[in-house]
């Protein structure tokens, strides 16, 4: 491994005609395949506690991914993502309690939050900048009392429990393994689809809307329509994460969608890396692991420690954890080749095309 890396660095910067490593045809197949194998094997060999933690990370990675679609890629501040997670969770819990078909429940858990998101977006997307943030702030604030008041459907402040992921007999798996597989399949699907979305035509449109709405209009891209679209997709993905939430946590209450969690999701997205698929995963991991970590250090100081970690990450890596490898390679190239920032030509910040998947840190500043 050491020898490999020493060989690679020298010619790396002098191959302008070669496609970047990750876009080589064989790499594009081999890496996902390898990942797939790891994901299939991992639940079988890992311990129960690790599996449960991984499943939780999956749940919140999906929620952060949804937030990324509207915020990271389209540049619209949304503070309401937890509301859609909550709606998805409640729909799932209600469906399961009434013995509906689980596939139908899943469809509803996607559909209802998406419709709710669409309705909100139709009004909110007419506003710009911080105004849209103010509208979305209302969602969790309205959501909590709403969940308490609609006690016929939500169980009021006592919440709803639902265990529906009974492991099928024929699999011979433990509960935690089965749950992790379901999270991996559904979450993985959402990630693959979202990746395709943000890399394709729509992703480019989102990026232009984020960059400059006037430019978008002049190119025949309606900022309003794409904002509504991004918001609706984010809500739908939020609904999916709500379904997974019920699968893994098996309980929801008005506390689930309290406003504070929305802010935590946002912090997780920024820490993971805004406008980045991998960043969404890292954000989910941050959301789940940091409370556990701070609990290990001192359960009485969790909030303080979390705040400190947030600040440290933002100071050292303003582009989020997803920018860590780039920051490292850049540093190494700078010391070895002595050529400075020119060594990273693949991510110019103004490019609106294929660079959406790995934006440079500077790309995020427009909508803070």
């Amino acid at each position, binding site marked *: *491994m050491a020898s*490999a*890396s020493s*060989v*690679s660095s020298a*010619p*790396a910067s002098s*191959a302008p005609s*070669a496609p970047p*490593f990750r876009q*080589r045809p064989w*790499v594009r197949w*081999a*890496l996902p395949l*390898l990942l797939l194998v*790891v994901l299939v*094997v*991992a639940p*079988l*060999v*890992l*311990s*129960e*506690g*690790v599996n*449960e*933690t991984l499943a*939780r990370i999956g749940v919140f990675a999906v929620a952060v991914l949804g937030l990324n679609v509207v915020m990271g890629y389209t540049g619209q501040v949304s503070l309401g993502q937890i509301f859609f997670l909550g709606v998805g969770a409640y729909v799932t819990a209600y469906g399961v309690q009434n013995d509906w078909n689980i596939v139908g429940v899943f469809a509803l858990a996607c559909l209802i939050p998406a419709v709710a998101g669409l309705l909100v977006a139709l009004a909110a997307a007419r506003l710009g900048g911080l105004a849209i943030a103010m509208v979305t702030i209302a969602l969790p604030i309205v959501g909590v*009392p709403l969940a*308490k*008041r609609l006690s016929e459907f939500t169980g*009021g*402040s*006592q*919440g709803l*429990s639902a*265990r529906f992921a009974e492991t099928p007999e024929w699999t011979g798996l*433990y*509960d*935690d393994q089965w749950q992790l597989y379901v999270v991996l399949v559904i979450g993985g699907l959402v990630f693959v689809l979202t990746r395709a979305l943000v890399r394709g035509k729509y992703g480019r449109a989102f990026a232009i809307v984020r960059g400059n709405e006037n430019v978008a209009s002049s190119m025949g891209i309606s900022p309003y329509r794409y904002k509504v679209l991004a918001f609706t997709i984010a809500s739908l993905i939020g609904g999916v994460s709500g379904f997974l*939430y019920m699968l893994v*946590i*098996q*309980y*929801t*209450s*008005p*506390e*689930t969608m*309290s406003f*504070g969690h929305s802010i935590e999701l946002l912090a997780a997205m920024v820490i993971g890396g805004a406008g980045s698929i991998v960043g969404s995963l890292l954000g989910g991991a941050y959301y*789940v692991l940091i*409370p*556990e970590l*701070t*609990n290990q250090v001192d*359960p*009485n100081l*969790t*909030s303080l420690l979390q705040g400190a970690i947030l600040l440290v990450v933002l100071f050292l890596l303003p582009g989020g954890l997803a920018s860590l490898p780039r920051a490292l390679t850049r540093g190494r190239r700078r010391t070895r080749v002595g050529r400075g920032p020119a060594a990273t030509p693949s991510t110019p910040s103004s490019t609106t095309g294929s660079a959406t998947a790995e934006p440079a840190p500077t790309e995020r500043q427009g909508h803070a």
Partner: protein
Amino acid sequence: MNKQFRSRTARGIAVASALALTLTACGRGDEGGGGGSRGGSASPGITDDSVTLGITTPLSGATAGPGTCTVAGVKAYFGAKNAEGGVEFGDGKTRTVEIEALDDAYDPQQAKANYDQLKDDVFAMTAGLGTPTNRAWREAAIADEVPQVLVMTGDPLFSDPEESPWQLGFVPIYQNEGEAMGELLASSTGEHKVAILSQNDDFGEGYVEGFKSAIEGSDNIEIVNELTYEATDTSVDAQITELASSGADVFFNAMSVTPLMISALQKAQQVNWTPSWFLPSNTSSPGAILEPGGAAAYPGIYSVAFSKTPAAPAFADNEDVQTYLAALKEHGDYPDPPAFPHCQWSWMVGATLEQAFAEMTEPTRENFMEALRSIEGFEAPLMLPDTSVSTGEDGQPAVSTVVVQKYNGKGYDTVETFE
């Protein structure tokens, strides 16, 4: 170019295989650690000389105050016991009791995560505060056969042995409190008209249910008006004005929101309505609610309690209280005077657990649950006279008896009759 190509391949594969190796190395060491133990072999979290208890409770966020207390009390209790050598168990062994507490910030999701983290290391979970945070892992605890006992929630679900075989609530359920108030009123000789205001959720409904069941069949009590409000409302002025016009001389106010309670006390005076009040235990604090509300204007303010208040002058010299305050300082990481009754409750949880430990003949979770459910009429330290811990009653939490107290301008005195 080709060189670069291959070297990068090599690096990629190297990283991947390293990852794969690490993953396999982790392995699934112990098979299905979460499952319940069978028969005589010891359950997780207990050895011949120590037992570990787990707590998940809010230690940060809005409910951190009472949450910190739920850890401090039980930690102080067993800290003091450990310093004396440990707790004697029914199987003849003496064990020290360790407490592992984690912060859930009143987030159900985090509470479940904490439970998952603790369940294989602790013998039992206990003392955690909060209805949603305890409900979040109730079903998992049943499936894993992990005791979730003496938790601080007024939710009756935890005290139903059919539904919750591995659970037991500690504090009185809402119905218990309402019932105690209703009984006092029903025992009065005079005629009384009652106005009821309640929070439109399980809290308010529980209180009213208990209150009504106690006054049922009493001819001298008439409910003249009954209104509700939402926990998120910012004012109940309209309800107070309407209730005032009913001419009631007793006001049963099942309200859990501190600022609303203060404004209700003030508003009733403004409209010249001065009934006797019945207040829930958690919104009847003399310093924080009654004084700012101007409660002295009313003929009587009644509430319920089961624990002594260390701050009250009547208990300042009490031996129980002295021991408790000293231990809280020394072993509970709680140097200040306790600001919430949860500290005292948690101390009682410690005493109740010790009772159960003394009855345990086998170091198993099953045996512990049996022992815990067999406590009858135990007067835990800090308990008020006429209250006790009884765990055998179906549908009742460990403490289901409360005494009604009347505000005396500074604190509360226990009363036997309503006058």
